[in-house]
């Protein structure tokens, strides 16, 4: 296996981890927008307490993907930045607004109206970011992003403003929302709150299946190669099969209120879908022109980067295990201690 393929695999892995850890944070923001019913405030409080400790640290995964892209596949980064400048700018706007409004709301104890206003901005920007992340994924999977001599051939809207990327955007938003709802069911012991988020998980899970099917259908018109990729690449059917099994397990577990199992199956489902996309996209990075091979930096750089990633992982994995072992005790007591130590 060439160094370029290994680096691309590392990037895909980082993207999967970002979807699993960062995704639910965005999804939680989406549910914040949708809070309703008699337990509205309780739902909001649950969301706030679930995302508090991790906060914005999950963006590190996204930064890792970006950095590895421009170091390992500079042309890819350059093309995406130009052709998809509009959605990327909206992603950034979403990230900054979300972060600021969340911090502000979390620490602001003044008027309820200001808090609600910040909450609105928080939840809207939380929804914008995954939508446009999905749009970027959709756009580089369809044959729209082409840059010649520093000029985007399809302009700045034509690259992404058509059905396929938009539906992929909706797919990613619904998947993050689904994932988040599944995660939230086990963040509380209150049965009625659990039930609220279980119903939401079922609804958003269903929505994500509909969008997944739609993606496949629309791909027939505008993103034929990636659709073919789903059947052409060897063993991709194993991933598809795994995803289908995960969907069935997750829905069954949600239906029978086995929340821990639902959470794990939902995570597996999302991980398999992102992986499946990556495998189907192979060997392209930006369809139709840029592939892993024709856009890669020289192989000595790629192997240096991989060594750096490996050394980094050697430091990080034991530290992460240490962190988790320090907090093996129940989550509840963590947030209790955190509250007292922080004030």
């Amino acid at each position, binding site marked *: 296996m060439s160094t370029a393929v290994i680096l691309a695999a590392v990037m895909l892995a980082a993207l999967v981890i970002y979807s699993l850890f960062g995704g639910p944070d965005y999804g939680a923001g989406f549910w914040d927008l949708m809070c309703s019913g008699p337990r509205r405030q309780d739902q909001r409080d649950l969301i706030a307490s679930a995302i508090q*400790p991790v*906060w*914005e*640290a999950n*963006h*590190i995964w*996204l*930064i*890792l993907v*970006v*950095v*590895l892209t*421009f*170091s*390992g596949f*500079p042309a890819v*980064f*350059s093309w*995406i*930045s*130009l052709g998809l*400048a509009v959605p*990327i*700018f909206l992603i*950034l*706007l979403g*990230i*900054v*607004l979300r*972060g*600021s409004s969340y*911090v*502000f709301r979390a*620490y602001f104890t003044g008027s309820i109206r200001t808090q609600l206003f910040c909450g609105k901005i928080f939840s809207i920007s939380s929804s914008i970011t995954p939508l446009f992340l999905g749009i970027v994924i959709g756009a580089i999977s369809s044959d729209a992003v082409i840059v010649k001599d*520093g*000029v*985007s051939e399809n302009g700045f809207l034509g690259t992404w403003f058509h059905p396929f990327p938009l539906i992929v955007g909706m797919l990613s938003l619904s998947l993050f929302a689904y994932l988040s709802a599944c995660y939230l069911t086990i963040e509380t012991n209150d049965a009625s709150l659990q039930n609220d988020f279980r119903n939401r998980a079922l609804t958003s899970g269903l929505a994500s299946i509909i969008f997944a099917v739609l993606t496949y259908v629309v791909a027939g018109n505008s993103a034929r190669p990636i659709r073919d990729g789903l059947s052409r690449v060897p063993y991709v059917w194993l991933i598809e099969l795994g995803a289908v099994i995960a969907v069935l397990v997750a829905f069954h577990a949600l239906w029978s209120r086995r929340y821990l199992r639902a959470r794990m199956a939902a995570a597996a489902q999302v991980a398999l879908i992102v992986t499946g996309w990556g495998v189907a996209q192979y060997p392209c990075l930006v369809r139709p022109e840029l592939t892993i091979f024709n856009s890669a*930096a*020289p192989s*000595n*750089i790629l192997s*240096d*980067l991989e060594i*750096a*990633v490996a050394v*980094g992982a050697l*430091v*990080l994995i034991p*530290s*992460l295990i*240490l*962190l988790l072992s*320090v*907090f093996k*005790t129940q989550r509840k007591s963590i947030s209790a*201690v*955190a509250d*007292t*130590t*922080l004030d």
Partner: protein
Amino acid sequence: MDNFIAARSQMGMSLAFHIVFATIGVSLPLMMTIAEWRWRSTGDPAYLVLAKRWAKGTTILFAVGAISGTVLSFELGLLWPRFMQYAGAVIGMPFSLEGFAFFTEAIFLGIYLYGWNRVPGWFHLLSGIIVAISGILSAIFVTLVNGWMNTPTGFEIVAGKFENIHPFVAMSNPAGIPEAIHMVLAAYTAAGFATAGIHGWLLLRRGRNRFDEVAIGIALLVGGAAVLLQSVSGDALARMVAAKQPMKLASLEGQFQTETGAPFRIGGLPFPDERETKFAIEIPHGLSLLSFHSPNALIKGLDQEPESDWPNVRMVHICFQIMVGCGSLLSLFAVAAGWLSWKKRSLINHPRFLKALVFVSPLGFVALEAGWMVTELGRQPWIIYHLMRTKDAVTSMPNVTITFLAMTAVYVILGTIVVWLLSRHLIAAPEGKQLAHQGVL
């Protein structure tokens, strides 16, 4: 606004904010670790309150730094796609390493925040030290990239493309380490003096209290030690610039003519049309002496380069003067404070001292921003020194003005929130019971 100017403004604005967030985020962990160490060795609860406050500040700045750092990593491509296309592979390594340093910081910050009662004391202190070190490493890695843009190494140009790239050689470019050390010390200076100044002001308002006193003690120690070391690091950096980027030195100094035994100018205003810097106090042979440690060394002037390739000499010179001026004032203050506190121990409660402290406290940040302007404006019109012009790297996307204005508005909001949060959670007077019973914390 012209697209090119808008792109430069947006990048400059994002960096100007990020540099403040990152600076505080790099310095607070050191101060919080010192405070915890003092608490563990003296048992004085004021230190514990302080360590926890500064830990909270670190958390806030860490999160905000993560946000503004994410924005910057994308903006590199959004605004300068051609730069990234050609140079991405060369400068990717320090950025990747920075990612890992940042990650380590996140993990140990987690242990630090939530581990007060869960891990042994020595290990908690060690986690604080690791947070402080990984913060420094992040700052160093990022500054190495800026160093590379000033003194690019680690590649060959073959047919207009970068070939034979060696990422680690690129990382160890001549400007990198001197710049990085200068940056880290600047961070400690700026945040140390600003923190000391804020507590000085509070001490004047709230009257004598242990909390503000110990805060000033630690912050001033960090800021004062850093600013004194800064003169050594500034000298090393200036000699590097003199050797590797003579034109940059010439514009810092407003040196239009090539001459031996060039004077060092204090103040003054360059007039590029007349090829002269007027109204400056000139120290004969000063510049030659400082740059090459030899009174008659030859200093190349701007006349060595076509005027179209000059940076904005007036701006660069003014910013440089501001940086050096603020640094000198702070050094003077640090020396005086050190001397006085050695002579007379109760200095910290002397109103005149506190007023002077409040007066000089913002100068660290002024010097930091001015210094950043010097290095960025002084490199113009090049994005990669003598290799790629900034205007050739800019995006072809129209209407950058809109994104510039939108991002500026968003950053202003973010900045306001940070200031508000810090004022609310870091410097508010601790309640009596917090100081009396540690258990309540």
